[in-house]
């Protein structure tokens, strides 16, 4: 009996040893995307919540001073890396416009590279790919969706998402939810309709499309509402949350009276149908290019003594919002820096735009500037401290529009007068700023927090920073030679925790020194 047990135990141990080798190949299934393992980062935000927070604790406030370079990957491109890498099965995937690299996450060497032919599209940036069951999904400057075999970068199919000749482009990383690949578009230079589309992961066929605004040419109605940043998803409610872009014409609001729904909005859509469940508008009748595409961060927790399913957004227009994500009801609206364009907050919790602060022929002095109090860079919600940490950009600017500027596209001009960059830690229950950390000018680096109490980000001078997430104090830094335009990720491989940051056209992997 004892022998039997011993044999059983040994056999179990052997199976346990073999099992990881046999089962090692990860498959980015719907289930895996809901519960990503620690040795993966399988979607833009790492998981569906948009918190960009990791449970990893190997790198701590105590040992982070020893953090050093594990490897660097040179894209040798003039284009800046703006993508958040994905990691599945030990392979990283990141991009610049027209380019995908598959890179070994252990060593940083290239496995394959894919290039898309040059197009008439917009090359302002590329934010990364999505993965599902062994295939990648990649948006191109001319608004096509390309599906490729993750093993070798071979194209499976390509479909048109937007008409480049009408002015559509795409920069976003798709989001896979269940059996849907969610893709969005950009297109601020023309008066065209924004939309979010669900595509069949196997065939590329359109499953549903939700339009942000009425068809172009509808009298007195806005266009715009682009969908250029990856949203989030609540599997329990089966709702996807997405921010929409600014209205067009951009700076001239006279041609599109009213709130301009659903531009500058946070929308909740039923994942399987695209039907609107609710909408909240951070910037009604925007005339300052303050889209509301910033990450809708999903947090479950206490709000003034009550358990809530919340959605938080630090919005480009300068306000921090907390919503009940089951119904879109507002819980908190507070500015997180200088704003001077609203006369108050309405009953729904939405700022009321001041008509006197719309752009004018002789100029209006406005805070924030067009780049906004924050922008595309991801914030992080630190579950440990309950702090919402965001790279902010307090700024003042001049906004102009006059009849000669017309009613098409930009339709005005604006100029930043002064601005700076600050990492801010916001108490989500009050909106109070618990700590702030000066970073020089505006930084494009997002924020990543970890359970050990660290916040990784970057300043405008090109320093990669590790801050104590409880007080914002710098614990480690490294000059990287260029400022970052992407959001950090982290993962563990072979028992070693890596943090990835990009600067300029280079991807850096940081880790604690290996035991010799």
């Amino acid at each position, binding site marked *: 009996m004892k022998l039997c047990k011993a044999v059983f135990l040994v056999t179990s141990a052997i199976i346990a040893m073999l099992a990881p080798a046999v089962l090692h190949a990860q498959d980015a299934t719907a289930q895996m995307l809901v519960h990503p393992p620690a040795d993966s980062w399988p979607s833009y935000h790492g998981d569906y919540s948009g918190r960009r927070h990791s449970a990893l604790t190997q790198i701590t406030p105590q040992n982070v001073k020893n953090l050093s370079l594990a490897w660097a990957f040179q894209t040798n491109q*003039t284009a800046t890396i703006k993508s958040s890498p994905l990691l599945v099965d030990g392979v990283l995937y990141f991009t610049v416009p027209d380019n995908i690299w598959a890179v070994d996450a252990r060593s940083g060497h290239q496995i394959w590279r894919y290039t898309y032919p040059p*197009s*008439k*599209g*917009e*090359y*302002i940036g590329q934010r990364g790919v999505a993965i599902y069951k062994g295939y990648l999904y990649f948006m191109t400057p001319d608004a096509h969706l390309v599906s490729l075999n993750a093993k070798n970068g071979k194209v499976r199919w390509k479909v048109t998402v937007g008409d480049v000749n009408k*002015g559509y482009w795409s920069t976003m990383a798709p989001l896979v939810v269940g059996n849907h690949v969610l893709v969005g578009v950009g297109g*601020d*230079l023309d008066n065209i309709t924004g939309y979010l589309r669900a595509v069949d992961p196997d065939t590329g066929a359109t499953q549903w499309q939700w339009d942000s605004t009425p068809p172009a040419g509808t009298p007195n109605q806005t266009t715009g509402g682009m969908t250029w940043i990856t949203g989030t998803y609540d599997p329990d409610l089966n709702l996807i949350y997405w921010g929409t872009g600014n209205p067009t014409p951009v700076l001239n609001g006279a041609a599109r009276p009213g709130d301009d729904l659903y531009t500058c909005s946070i929308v909740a859509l039923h994942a399987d149908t695209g039907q609107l469940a609710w909408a909240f508008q951070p910037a009604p009748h925007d005339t300052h*290019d303050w889209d509301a595409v910033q990450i809708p961060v999903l947090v479950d927790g206490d709000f003034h003594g009550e358990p809530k399913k919340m959605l938080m957004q630090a919005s480009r227009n300068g306000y921090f919002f907390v919503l009940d994500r089951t119904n879109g009801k507002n819980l908190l609206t507070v*500015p*997180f*820096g*200088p*704003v*001077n364009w609203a006369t108050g907050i309405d009953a729904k919790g939405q700022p009321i735009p001041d008509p*006197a602060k719309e752009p004018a*022929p*002789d*100029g209006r*002095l406005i*805070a924030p*500037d*067009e*780049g906004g109090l924050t922008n595309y860079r991801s914030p992080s919600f630190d579950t440990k401290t309950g702090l919402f940490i965001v790279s902010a950009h*307090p700024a*003042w*600017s*001049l906004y*102009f529009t*006059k*009849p*000669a*500027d017309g009613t098409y*596209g*930009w339709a005005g*001009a604006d*100029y*930043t*007068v*002064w*601005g*700076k*960059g*600050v990492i*801010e830690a916001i108490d989500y229950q009050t909106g109070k*700023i618990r*700590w*702030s950390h*000066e970073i*020089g*000018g505006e930084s494009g680096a997002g924020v990543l927090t970890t359970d050990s109490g660290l916040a990784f980000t970057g*300043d*405008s*001078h090109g*320093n990669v920073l590790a801050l104590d997430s409880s007080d*914002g*104090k710098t614990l480690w*830094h490294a000059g990287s030679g260029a400022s970052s335009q992407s959001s950090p990720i982290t993962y563990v491989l072979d028992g070693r925790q890596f943090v990835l940051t990009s600067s300029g056209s280079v991807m850096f992997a940081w880790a604690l020194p290996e035991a010799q």
Partner: protein
Amino acid sequence: MDRLEKLFCLHWSRSLRWGALLGGVIALPSLAAAQAMAAPPAKPATAVSKPAARVSAPAHRVYPEALVEAGESNFRQACAFCHGRGADGGEGGPDLTQSKLVAEDVDGDKIGGVVRKGRTDKGMPPFDYSDAKIASLAAFIHTRKYLAESKPGGRKGVAVADLQTGNLAAGRQYFVGAGGCANCHSATGDLSGIATRYEGLALEQRMLYPNSAKASVTVTRAGQTTIGTLAYLDEFTLALTDSKGVYHSWRTSDVQYKVDAPANAHIEQLPKYTDADVHNLMAYLQSLR
């Protein structure tokens, strides 16, 4: 507004406290503001031109259609997002059809330099483009400039004439009174003839915040003091250029330093202006010829 002001005050006082924690900082009126001095300046005005030195546009040149088309395609790919599809201004980028540099450019001899070097301090990356690609971009931009200037109904963007809505007397009053401008400036001293040196939007931007203003810094290490013009400052490194033009740098943790950035008063004024104040003050400065 009360709540906002409170928030902002809190924000600044915390900045100071963290600044103090950086170590070695004895007197720091505002690390934040000092850093901002060393940070990349804000977006530029389109037309920093002296009226007397304004260069008139060269006679219209007709470029080969294929070259303009190639230029349009190249422009659309790399430039249109910021400068607008018609090169007439857009998100963050100035209107190139009203640019002084474009007016002075001949076949890309000036445009090429900017494209290849970038203006990284203003957010424009460098582009490693061939001569042929530069030539196509120049052809497209010059063609757009001609079209924009030929179009009836006034120009897009900000003209000097647009910035004449203020009241001169009220502006003078603001200058000596509520604005506090006279604490540092004088109409017969440093600002004498300012309107002959700057005009329009460039003057207004400079009035609100002078990007090119220098800050001085006093650095003390082991009892030795060095004074100079602030050349670089981040959280970790401080540098100055001394009176002989020599660059010196230190770790911020090794020294005590004091930054004197008079232009910071402009930052403190920004939340206090009404739009009328801005226009009135502009009217007054435009009278200083």
